[in-house]
């Protein structure tokens, strides 16, 4: 692959990096708080839009004929090319996913950032670079690249979590996140080193070949190595038992960052997990399916049970997002060979993630709007929202329905696909636990709905909503409904994205 080709294929990443540095530079050059406060979010927004254009431009160049297109430069001293990243359906899906996350977060952050921190330009730059790391992680096919991208994501997340320096809760959140994160990364790296030691390569596809070709004693190593890798990735996804950091980090972090953390790192974690398990360890499926199923069950159950007792909406959504990750993991545990069937588990996972993106970011946009006015995010702050801001209340209702999984919302379609995959694979227990948990979750989501529609507001003044927040909430609500009502293109996108991964079975 020539350098020109490589640079063309990396265009989305390059555009996003340049955009982040332009934001950083303009923040230094532009004088006057007024100008910077008003225009920097839009510069960031424009940068992400250009990234979207670049992503669409490279879309047709992705791997053809069922083989992912590997990005390589030159040759290693063994004479073989060493692929670092791939441009395939999965990578493109997550590029699109990241762009959508960044568009929504930069739009909804405006007023919050303006009033909460003096470091505004850096905020948007770090946010874009965190997005870059998700793109890199989801495209990485080499352990070196995977570790680097995950660490990149971690470091940007730590800084963004501790962004409110005068708020002790923000600092505490960042410290907890950092210490857990450092431990989880170290364990994951040890797992990677075992895989490298047994195979002598860091390329995922080559690891798969070496593991099946080599001596059968490697089976002793695959299981511990998988668990160790799962510790690092499960930390990013916030799977139980690697979840302890998430409620504190979600509560203490600036709300736009919480919105990002609840979606971005989860997506990156799932993307890497899918690639690692399906590209490097497909021959050892019996070893890891049981682990994933067990983790899915405890993640769903614990997330939902603890969420029942929360009074702070950010904390509640943190536990709810733990539970949601548990549902998604069912899709990976119940994966099936690519066939005529409508769900392979994997496409259910991606569809669920896609619906969850709009649902959760929409819900957080409303939390931001309420918090901008009331200064806190207790459930009681939502009392009487239907009279104070009818538009927000109705949109929140739609998002909560989607989180529960009631039609006609995207969340319902996602659940249908992952539970369907579990039933198809005769993993009835997984599906039953998932459905019971969905029923339990109605209770705490309904607590918010009850406050919004029937609660007595202490303060009857209407809540002003900035136009950009209104746009975000409106578009997200429409998308949540559209995914269910006009499902066909979304299902096709999810199915095509996993085709190359699933075809190997």
């Amino acid at each position, binding site marked *: 692959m020539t350098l020109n080709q490589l640079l063309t294929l990396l265009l989305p990443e390059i555009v996003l990096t340049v955009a982040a540095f332009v934001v950083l530079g303009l923040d230094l050059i532009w004088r006057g708080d007024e100008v910077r406060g008003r225009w920097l979010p839009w510069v960031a927004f424009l940068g992400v839009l250009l990234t979207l254009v670049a992503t669409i431009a490279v879309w047709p160049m992705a791997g053809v004929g069922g083989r992912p297109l590997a990005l*390589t430069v030159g040759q290693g*001293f063994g004479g073989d*090319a060493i692929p*670092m990243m791939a441009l395939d359906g999965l990578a493109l899906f997550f590029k699109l996913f990241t762009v959508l996350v960044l568009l929504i977060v930069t739009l909804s952050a405006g007023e919050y950032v303006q009033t909460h921190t003096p470091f505004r330009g850096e905020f948007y730059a770090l946010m874009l670079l965190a997005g870059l790391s998700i793109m890199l992680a989801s495209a990485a096919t080499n352990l*070196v690249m995977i570790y680097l991208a995950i*660490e990149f994501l971690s470091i940007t997340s730590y800084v963004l979590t501790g962004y409110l320096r005068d708020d002790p809760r923000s600092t505490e959140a960042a410290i907890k996140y950092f210490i857990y994160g450092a431990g989880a990364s170290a364990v994951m790296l040890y797992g990677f080193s075992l895989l490298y030691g047994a195979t002598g390569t860091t390329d995922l596809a080559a690891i798969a070949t070496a593991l099946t070709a080599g001596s059968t*004693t*490697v089976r002793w190593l695959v299981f511990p190595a998988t668990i160790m890798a799962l510790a690092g990735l499960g930390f990013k996804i916030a799977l139980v038992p690697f979840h302890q950091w998430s409620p504190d980090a979600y509560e203490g972090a600036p709300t736009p960052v919480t919105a990002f953390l609840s979606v971005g790192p989860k997506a990156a974690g799932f993307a890497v997990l899918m690639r690692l398990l399906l590209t490097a360890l497909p021959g050892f499926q019996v070893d890891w399916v049981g682990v994933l199923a067990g983790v899915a069950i405890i993640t769903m159950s614990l997330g939902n049970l603890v969420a029942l007792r929360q009074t702070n909406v950010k904390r509640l959504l943190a536990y709810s997002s733990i539970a949601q990750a548990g549902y998604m993991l069912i899709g990976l545990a119940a994966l099936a060979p690519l066939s005529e069937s409508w769900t392979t588990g994997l496409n259910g996972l991606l569809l669920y993630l896609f619906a969850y993106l709009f649902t959760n970011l929409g819900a957080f946009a409303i939390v931001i709007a309420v918090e901008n006015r009331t200064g806190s995010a207790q459930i009681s702050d939502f009392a009487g929202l239907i009279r104070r801001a009818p538009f927000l209340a109705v949109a929140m209702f739609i998002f909560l329905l989607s989180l529960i999984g009631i039609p006609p919302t995207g969340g319902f379609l996602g659940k249908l696909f992952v539970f369907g995959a579990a039933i198809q694979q005769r993993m009835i227990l997984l599906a039953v636990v998932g459905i019971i948990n969905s029923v339990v979750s109605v209770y705490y989501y309904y607590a918010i709905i009850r406050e919004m529609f029937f609660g007595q507001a202490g303060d009857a003044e209407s809540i002003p909503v900035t136009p950009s927040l209104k746009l975000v909430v409106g578009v997200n609500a429409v998308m949540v409904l559209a995914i269910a009502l006009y499902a066909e293109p979304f299902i096709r996108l999810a199915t095509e994205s996993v085709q190359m991964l699933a075809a190997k079975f």
Partner: protein
Amino acid sequence: MPTNVVQIVVFAILTLMTLGGGLGVVSSRNLFHGALFLVLSFAGVVGYYVLLDAGFLAAVQLLIYIGAIAILILFAIMLSRGLMSQRQSQRNEQWWIALLVVVLTFVVLAVVLWQVDWPVASDQALASPSVAISQLGQELLGPYVIPFEVASVLLLVALVGAVILARETET
């Protein structure tokens, strides 16, 4: 596997340094002593690299871990003496759970190390040191150029982040 006696003795001394240093880090009540034990542990790892014929790696370990990181930690401790000087116990009521987890992890890893037939690197990988270094450089700017560039962006991000978290606010 070290075959002759000298190698075994050297290996034993290095292991004593590395593990003893590590034990000192987590058990010493004085933070400053802990940092000094960390230097000892790092020095043991340098010795391992030399034993493994990885001269460049040994030099890098010496320069970065002992020369930069450990010294920086010592500076940080000395500059924040007011906060850090009191002696603190390194144990709390959860020590036995930690011990249990550590022992279990050790058993699992020991079984893995024992049971797996580890592949041995080909002679090609054991090129003479000077050739190895130039190969390393070429690999870094060849096949590994994408991670190399990503690492540079990551360092910049860490720099910006550190400035944001530590800078005095003007207003």
